[in-house]
């Protein structure tokens, strides 16, 4: 059972070589499209806001479709069948959904020099408290997401037999990998993941295209792959699995896809990728080009069924008696392909973890710097100081992520990530709707946020999974019977929570308006939402003096 690393020597050598190659690229990236002065958050944290269509495509694609996705979605399909395919409609509806929204966000951020979504909320609603809530929500939602990228690498290392007896020995490769990542992110900022994304995505595309042509050929065609999966789900006792949806999980499937789509571009790392692009045109063209990754994701998801047809067994999990289904994709490649090709696959997954981890840590660091440090610690911070604080914070964030994986059960990170999707959705009224309307009162938005958070946490707490024996936080499918409906249908927690949020915000807005409670001053003008490259900026260059002059009272 316990394969040792000797059997995987070719894979390990290829993995290590490719890993070292991208690490070198990460350090060189500081000189790529180098600015005159790197000591500015626009340069370190947003790559100079200068990325064109191709770079943005690779960067945002590498950012949204993470290593964890590539490992966990097929694992879900392997375990539950059709329900795991929600990732496909999710990544289809997202682009038409945000096609116009992101352009507005880009424009207003360009005019005002915003680096984070909380920067926008602060100016739009004249509320440092609301901005702080948005910033903290973003940081809390991003942290476990970074930790999950390590789960992706770990699945690969485990399959290669790179394990140890003590917790430290087992995690040493990950600690080294993240130390290198931290070092080049510190030096090169967003330019590092942008450059590495080229390698990562090219590798992934090649690997997957080969796999989806070769494996069905070897396993008797697509028809027999689906039939093998169908046969497996027929004999399992679980009622919810199968290669089609059943009457009870359709609502969950649709609301999870839609809710995840609403949440994705509220995540700080997605917004960082978008704000780094050069103009509105780049964003619009990317909304048409990014679905190429969705096709890739759909094919990757089906690797789960191929693993069933090939009778792949997952490696044992951390706890005795459990299995780690995240290892099925690495195991499939290990079993079906020669060592050198499996090595390339593993490198693709491993490097695939580095790109989003770098962008996420940059995004979290920017939130801390702009909306906590500059707001509450040092209001007169210079751009150079801002860049420095962000660089150091990005290190702290990565140490935190590694500590999560080394000292806590990885399941804890997965639970937190589940919660993260629900809580980031609670910033929707302030950030996404705020781009269109200032109708909501800032006080009502704060109350709505609190109500949505409370509702979401309560619902997640109620979700149990009898199969694994977990009583709380066992998933995002909330049984409607808990609300008193006589049904077995389930619904995605995030959707209900954000509806509660909106209802509270709307009602309270009416109340506060009627009571004539002060609502602050909107620092943006309607024109700001259509500004494009070359239009004058309200806060030109590094000096944000105009901003502080306009707001004499906090």
């Amino acid at each position, binding site marked *: 059972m316990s394969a040792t690393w000797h059997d995987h020597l070719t894979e390990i050598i290829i993995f290590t070589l490719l890993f070292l190659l991208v690490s070198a690229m990460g350090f060189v990236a500081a000189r790529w499209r180098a600015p005159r002065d790197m000591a500015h958050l626009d340069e370190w944290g947003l790559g100079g806001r200068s990325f064109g269509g191709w770079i943005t495509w690779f960067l945002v694609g590498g950012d949204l479709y993470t290593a964890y996705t590539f490992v966990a979605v097929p694992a879900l399909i392997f375990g539950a069948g059709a329900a795991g395919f929600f990732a496909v409609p999710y990544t289809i509806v997202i682009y038409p959904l945000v096609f116009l929204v992101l352009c507005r966000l880009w424009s207003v951020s360009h005019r005002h020099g915003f680096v984070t979504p909380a920067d926008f909320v602060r100016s739009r609603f004249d509320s440092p408290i609301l901005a702080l809530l948005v910033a903290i929500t973003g940081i809390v939602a991003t942290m476990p997401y970074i930790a999950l990228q390590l789960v992706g690498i770990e699945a690969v290392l485990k399959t290669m037999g790179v394990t140890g007896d003590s917790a430290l020995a087992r995690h040493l490769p990950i600690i080294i990998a993240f130390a290198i990542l931290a070092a080049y992110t510190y030096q090169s900022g967003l330019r590092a993941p942008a450059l590495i994304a080229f390698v990562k995505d090219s590798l992934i595309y090649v690997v997957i295209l080969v796999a989806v042509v070769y494996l069905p050929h070897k396993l008797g065609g697509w*028809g027999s792959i689906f039939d093998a999966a169908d046969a497996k789900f027929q004999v399992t006792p679980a009622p919810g699995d199968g290669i089609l*949806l059943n009457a009870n999980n359709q609502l969950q499937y649709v609301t999870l896809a*839609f809710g995840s789509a609403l949440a994705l571009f509220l995540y700080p790392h997605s917004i960082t990728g978008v704000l780094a692009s050069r103009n509105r045109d780049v964003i619009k063209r990317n909304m048409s080009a990014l679905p190429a990754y969705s096709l890739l994701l759909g094919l990757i998801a089906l690797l789960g069924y191929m693993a069933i047809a090939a009778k792949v067994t997952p490696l044992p999990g951390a706890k005795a008696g459990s299995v780690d289904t995240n290892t099925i994709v690495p195991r499939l490649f290990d079993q079906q392909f020669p060592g050198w090709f499996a090595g390339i696959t593993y490198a693709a997954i491993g490097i695939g973890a580095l790109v989003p981890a770098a962008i996420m840590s940059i995004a979290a660091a920017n939130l801390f710097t702009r909306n906590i440090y500059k707001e509450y610690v040092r209001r007169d911070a210079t751009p150079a100081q801002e860049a420095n604080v962000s660089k150091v914070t990005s290190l702290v964030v990565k140490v935190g992520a590694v500590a999560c994986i080394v000292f806590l059960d990885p399941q804890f990170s997965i639970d937190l990530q589940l919660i993260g999707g629900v809580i980031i959705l609670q910033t929707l009224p302030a950030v996404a709707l705020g781009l269109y309307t200032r109708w909501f009162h800032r006080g009502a938005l704060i109350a709505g946020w609190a109500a949505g958070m409370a509702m979401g946490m309560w619902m997640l707490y109620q979700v149990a999974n009898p199969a694994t024996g977990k009583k709380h936080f066992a998933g995002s499918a909330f049984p409607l019977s808990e609300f008193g409906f006589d049904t077995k249908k389930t619904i995605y927690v995030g959707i209900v929570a954000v509806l509660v949020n909106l209802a509270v915000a709307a009602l309270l807005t009416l109340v506060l308006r009627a009571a004539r409670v002060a609502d602050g001053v909107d620092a943006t003008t309607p024109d700001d939402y*259509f500004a494009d490259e070359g239009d*004058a900026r309200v806060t030109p260059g590094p000096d944000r003096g105009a901003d502080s002059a306009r707001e004499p009272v906090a």
Partner: protein
Amino acid sequence: MAAPEPEAPSPARSRATDRSPWNWLLFIPIVVPLIPAFFNADAPRIFGFPRFYWLQLVWILLGVSTTTLVYQLTKKRGDR
């Protein structure tokens, strides 16, 4: 790749909107992929793929063509 625009001292008034009736088309690829009645079936199979899988992959093309169409139709107004 558009050539860099000349430095505009103030935002042009003509561009100060992105309203267009064509934008309503964007609702099609948001709504259609979220209706399980369309795709939640095995037959007909294409290349061995049950309808559930091939039709949802086809929705990707629906999304791409809609966003491309809307982009092209709304791009020219006011010389961008």
